[in-house]
């Protein structure tokens, strides 16, 4: 089986400069194609920059936006994941990721879990998506596309893998913080994300592709450190912290099957148990049922 060649576009978008960023995406797509990439992954809000505040509506694109179509037209014989602000027909704004393939827009994921604490203020400016679904791709693998904070909630990798994803793709604009000397690689954020990526790869027996942006907006510095993890949890590639670059990684598609035969964790998942328990917990948390009377529910 031919290996799958992935290009990680660890780039620094210009804040609010949609046209400049589009141009940069076109150029990187061309460079990735030249480098033999099958799949090119760009960071969260790579087309717009992150700290948009009231610029959110100014850079938003509808799914039928000709600029998105032009980007898609660069993907003949190629798959690409791009991050942008989506405006729905009823004018809600979402942080979104689109899968572009063979000239078409094939799938859109709207960020489900918006970060709204500490230095984050996403819910003020964006609506949240409500679908976590895997999507088939021309690559012969099913993709589980999600965005940054989505990965800080266990349901995301779990649902995407149960839905058939073999490659979990997380695109991020993660601001680096905590330079305490005790942190691995000197950055607390990097330590946390590396733990998540390995854990999810192992628990879902899937590849994890993490693409994080670099660059500076206002006070915050995005730390890069994009990586690819195999279904065994082994690190296949790690991009440098803070440096911009287009990095190529090859993965062995057969690795998913091998690992899932050896470690049939997904086979042994009990989604019906999870669902029944969740139904009970949701009712209880809403105050609809007295937890003491609820029984096991299983």
């Amino acid at each position, binding site marked *: 089986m031919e290996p799958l060649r992935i290009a990680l576009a660890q780039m620094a978008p210009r804040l609010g400069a949609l046209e400049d960023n589009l141009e940069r995406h076109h150029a990187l797509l061309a460079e990735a194609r030249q480098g033999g990439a099958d799949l090119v992954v760009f960071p969260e809000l790579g087309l717009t920059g992150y700290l948009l505040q009231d610029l959110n509506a100014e850079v938003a694109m509808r799914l039928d936006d000709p600029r998105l179509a032009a980007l898609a037209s660069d993907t003949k014989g190629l798959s690409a994941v791009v991050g942008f602000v989506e405006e729905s027909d009823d004018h809600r704004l979402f942080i979104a990721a689109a899968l572009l393939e063979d000239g078409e827009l094939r799938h859109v994921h709207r960020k489900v879990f918006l970060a709204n604490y500490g230095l984050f203020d996403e819910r003020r400016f964006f609506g949240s998506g409500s679908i976590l679904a895997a999507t088939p791709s021309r690559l012969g693998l099913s993709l589980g596309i999600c965005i940054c904070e989505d990965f800080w909630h266990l349901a995301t990798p779990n649902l995407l893998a149960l839905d058939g994803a073999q490659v979990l793709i997380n695109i991020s604009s993660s601001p680096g913080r905590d*330079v305490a000397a005790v942190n691995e690689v000197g950055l607390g954020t990097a330590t946390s994300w590396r733990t998540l990526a390995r854990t999810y790869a192992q628990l879902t027996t899937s590849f994890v592709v993490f693409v994080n942006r670099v660059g*500076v907006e206002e006070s915050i510095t995005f730390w890069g450190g994009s990586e690819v993890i195999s279904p065994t949890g082994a690190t296949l590639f790690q991009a440098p912290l803070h440096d911009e670059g287009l990095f190529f990684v090859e993965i062995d598609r057969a690795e998913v099957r091998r690992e899932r035969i050896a470690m049939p964790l997904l086979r042994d998942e009990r989604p019906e148990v999870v669902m029944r328990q969740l139904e009970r917990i949701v009712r209880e948390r809403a105050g609809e049922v007295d937890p003491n009377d609820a029984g096991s529910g299983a």
Partner: protein
Amino acid sequence: MTSVSASPPSGSGPAFELPAELGIDTDVARRIIDGFITSQLRQAGFSRAVVGLSGGIDSALVAHLVAEAIGADSLLCVLMPYSGSSADSRTDAAAVVDQLGCASTLVDISPMVDAYFADGAPGGREASPVRRGNFMARMRMAVLYDHSVTFGGLVAGTGNKTEMLIGYTTLFGDSACAFAPIGDLYKSQVRQLAAVMGVPDAIVRKSPSADLWPGQTDEGELGVSYADLDRLLFWMIDKRRAPDELIELGFDDGLVERVGRMVARSEFKRQVAPIAKLGPRTVGIDYLYPRRRPGSARR
């Protein structure tokens, strides 16, 4: 209290006390600050910076960081002594300029300050040292911002996290800047980074001072060492510990109370002035744009 002593490469004994939990990865911090300085300038349409150099460790470190980020050729250090400033401050500032090979200029602020207090100021010559100190800090700000125009560079701030949190700054004086490269580093961390970057040993070792009157030191005036103050602020602010938890950690209850009050009382210095909300869309309240966006750069 766990702490380690840090020595500069030339070290003849510890240059300062670095509490263990405050130790930073200086390579990563340096990389982030370098990128921050470069980006702030580029996004504003500038390629040069201006630093007010006092002879103390904060401004020496900022000058080093700016020189590393954009090159010493693009840095102007402005020395602004007052007649009462210590001679050592002047010598130490000159040593940093020599070391970096950057442009520098000296503006004696004594005539401006003395003219005001000799003539127009209420209370005149009897003005308190604090009033005089604040006025000096604001004169230096005015001089620095004028040089920002003539040199074509943004003013890099030299404030650190410790002084910002306790309000040991002059509003619209030393706190005025275009961007603050070391504003998230406690004084102990400033010392750690300064030692690594090769700021002259004499500057790293000397007692920090606002240099407003002879013999003044920050630690003497605040009544606490920076190592203790930084540790307390770290647990209070970064680690979100409540006063009773801080006392349980071994901090003196009087100090916890006093520092807590200093932080609360200086909240106004860290925020822009509130605007009376009248219209449908008000600056800073429901008109929210990033400082740097398409069209905001000078060119």
